């Protein structure tokens, strides 16, 4: 390949990677299995970090990441149907609706603890989450990952909730 074509390929490569990244996220958000879970703020003084709301998802597993073994990082899988906690990736027959995370310092970390919001609505949304009125819709990609597709307040999409409130 001549230098000219190599240069063009080097410019196109990142654009293709970014396009692939977008398409993958679109696929997960639209095609994945949907799951609605309640959220709560873990630091009621300040849930806002820049332009996003930081929260914890309540997965509904009481024994999740408890015990002294979970003080250091440990890969963990939670299956929603049937409800169980696993130390390794479940087989398709065992569980189809599962989420991968890491138990760290007694917390189940999935990287799904952030929702970007416009700054002008930040305080109202923060207050609603503090008051335990928030939920998130997850779209599971089937291989342990997930994307957050919406933030619900009182069962309404945050955009609708904000417009109703205004």
């Amino acid at each position, binding site marked *: 390949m001549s230098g000219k074509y*190599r*240069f063009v390929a*080097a*410019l196109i*490569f990142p654009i293709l990677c*970014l396009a692939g990244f977008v398409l993958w*996220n679109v696929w997960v958000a639209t095609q994945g299995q949907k799951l609605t879970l309640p959220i709560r703020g873990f630091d009621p003084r300040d849930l806002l970090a820049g332009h996003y709301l930081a929260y914890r998802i309540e997965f509904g597993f009481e024994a999740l990441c408890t015990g002294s073994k979970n003080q250091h990082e440990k890969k963990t899988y939670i299956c929603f149907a049937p409800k169980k906690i696993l130390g390794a990736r479940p087989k398709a027959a065992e569980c189809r609706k599962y989420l991968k995370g890491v138990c760290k310092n007694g917390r189940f970390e999935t990287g799904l603890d952030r929702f970007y919001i416009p700054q002008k609505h930040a305080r109202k949304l923060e207050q609603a989450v503090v008051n335990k009125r928030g939920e998130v819709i997850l779209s599971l990609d089937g291989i342990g990952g997930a994307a957050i597709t919406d933030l619900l307040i009182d069962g309404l999409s945050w955009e609708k909730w904000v417009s109703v409130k205004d």
Partner: protein
Amino acid sequence: MARLTRRLNKWCRAGLIDEQQVVAIEKFEAGQPSWLLRGLLGLAVTSIGIGVIALVASHWENIPDVIILGLTFVLLAAIALGAWAMKMRNNCTGAELFIFAFLIACLAAIGLISQTFNLSGRLDHALLFWGLIVAPITVMAQFRLVPALWLWVMLVVGLVIPIVEWVDQLGWLDQRTVIGLVGILPITTAIGLVALNKLKRFDNFEWAFRVITVFAWFSAIVIFDISLSWEAANPTNKDELSGASLMVSFGTLLSLFVFALAWFWEIFPRARLILIGAQLGIYLCFLALACLTNGVPYLGSVFIILLFGFCATDMARAGRRGAAQFLLVLIGIRMLTFYIDAFGGLAITAVGLICVGVLILLTTLVWYRKRHNVMSWLEGVDK
């Protein structure tokens, strides 16, 4: 340019070059791309890039995600086209600026995609992803700025942060381990430097590796010296040395590896390799003492004098007199601080300073009388 003109005129007056050559050299230099112009343009592009990232971060709620993402890709494509057009016109400065803008735009795009899909990844992971996708275009950059910035960012997010996290997971992250980690950094980057030297390609990356290696080497030495002096006065708990021992062992293995590479690939002449080996040995002893002991008074200065002494000799042999002189100045400064530190009181410090002064004077006199012999040996030139 004015400095060059002054020098050229001086050489012309001395009869070393004629006036025609002065004019030809000045004309050639005037045609070279100006570093000031490049710097200012780079600053402008950086400012615009940061502005774009800030705009992305401000979250335009009224514009649908599809349009925002579409505009981002249009912007990326436009910048890429600009870089290609400049490349076709053989405008190196223009192409480089567009490449720089493209890198910033790629980073902004990752931020925007994360925001659109509410991805909570860490900044270092985003930078690692960015580094991987822009690696091919970075290799093709012609000036040093882009490869250097890319390499330094990648070293931090792809090497330092994962090692720190790994040591932290093992539960060994403490003050001594951090000193060891700082100590192995220049050895690690030296592996990259030796490999690129062997390949005889990627000059910009080699330069970036050299800069970071020298910077990390100086930083590590300063930290070792402070650690030895400070810990001697404030001993810390010696019980937990797992992390520090790991770093010293790892540093030793890496040193042996890099030295073996340099030796078998014959990167430098054998005499120079022996000098470098001696420096590595002293450096490793310094690293081990700084990591594993509670400090030994004044030993830091001894190591610095030894290490910089060997290094100055090495620089002189390599024909880099400026670097050798700089290291000798550092040795002088460290000797002064050593005397002040060792003697404490004002009167005794004064005696110490006089002693140092006399020592420097005598060394200089001996040096002046024997300089031809010494330089012939150091630089490998016949008398």
